[in-house]
């Protein structure tokens, strides 16, 4: 069943503050097999001009995960999670995320379209610092695979 286009523009409440820790950045970089020193050594990050460890370019998915779940599990949207796949992903960074950042994420439904029996929902998450600075915008395309109608 197609998703109601009235959900376009629906915005969810901001998440509680996510405190970016050095060990989480190190753990995430390690999981990516990435040994770049600016993810592990504060002096290396500072030599590049940053205040503390810098997070890898895709780290914002960790920060925005709880926010995105608000959409995925919204009972009114009624997505069947077992039929949802991740179609596209985009990050737009105003600046890198640093250890010590305190961030909130606000998600909204950016667009809904249907093609070939699938519903495609673009979820937009804006990541702000607690001082109100926009840090990153994260777009995730959720594809809800259609169920074949019995004939």
């Amino acid at each position, binding site marked *: 069943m197609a998703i109601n286009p009235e959900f376009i523009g629906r915005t969810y409440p901001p998440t509680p503050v996510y405190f970016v820790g050095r060990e989480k950045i190190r753990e*995430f970089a390690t999981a990516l097999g990435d040994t770049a020193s600016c993810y592990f050594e504060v002096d290396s990050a500072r030599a590049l001009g940053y205040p503390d460890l810098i997070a890898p*370019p895709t780290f914002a998915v960790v920060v925005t*995960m709880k926010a995105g779940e608000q959409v995925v599990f919204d009972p009114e949207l009624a997505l069947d999670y077992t039929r949802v796949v991740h179609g596209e992903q985009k990050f737009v960074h105003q600046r890198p995320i640093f250890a010590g950042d305190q961030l909130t994420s606000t998600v909204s439904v950016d667009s809904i379209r249907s093609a070939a029996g699938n519903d495609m929902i673009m979820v937009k998450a804006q990541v702000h610092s607690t001082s109100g600075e926009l840090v990153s915008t994260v777009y995730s395309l959720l594809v809800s695979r259609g169920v074949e109608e019995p004939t």
Partner: protein
Amino acid sequence: MTLISYFDLHVGLELPAQEFVFTRVDLIKYAGASGDFNVIHWNERVATEVGLPSVIAHGMLTMGTVIRVVTDWLGDPGKITSYSARFTRPIPVPDSDEGATIKVTAKITELLENNQAVISILAIHNDVTVLAKTVVTVTLKP
């Protein structure tokens, strides 16, 4: 480390290619670090029940890994101002020591004003493109 300058670049410039290998433990590590515990990334029984050949790599593990072709070359990951990809084909990760290999190449496709360069990444597994429209914008020093 000497950082790349905008004026060193030209359209068509190829970045150093790299190969990456995913084994089962890499999927488990990424699940733990990212918080994405979708069973199709670690449970072979469920993965095959839903029609996959095996457990598959997280799309975001692939995206987070292949960007190293850019960040290793650049020396400063903080210069990446946008990064997008489309997940076209899953990467099955067999229960073997060899795992799954991804071959990654990248080249400059466009130079913009304000010291920005656009880079296109190609990620291939078993002769199949696993990420499409994989585009990175970097903002460099002049």
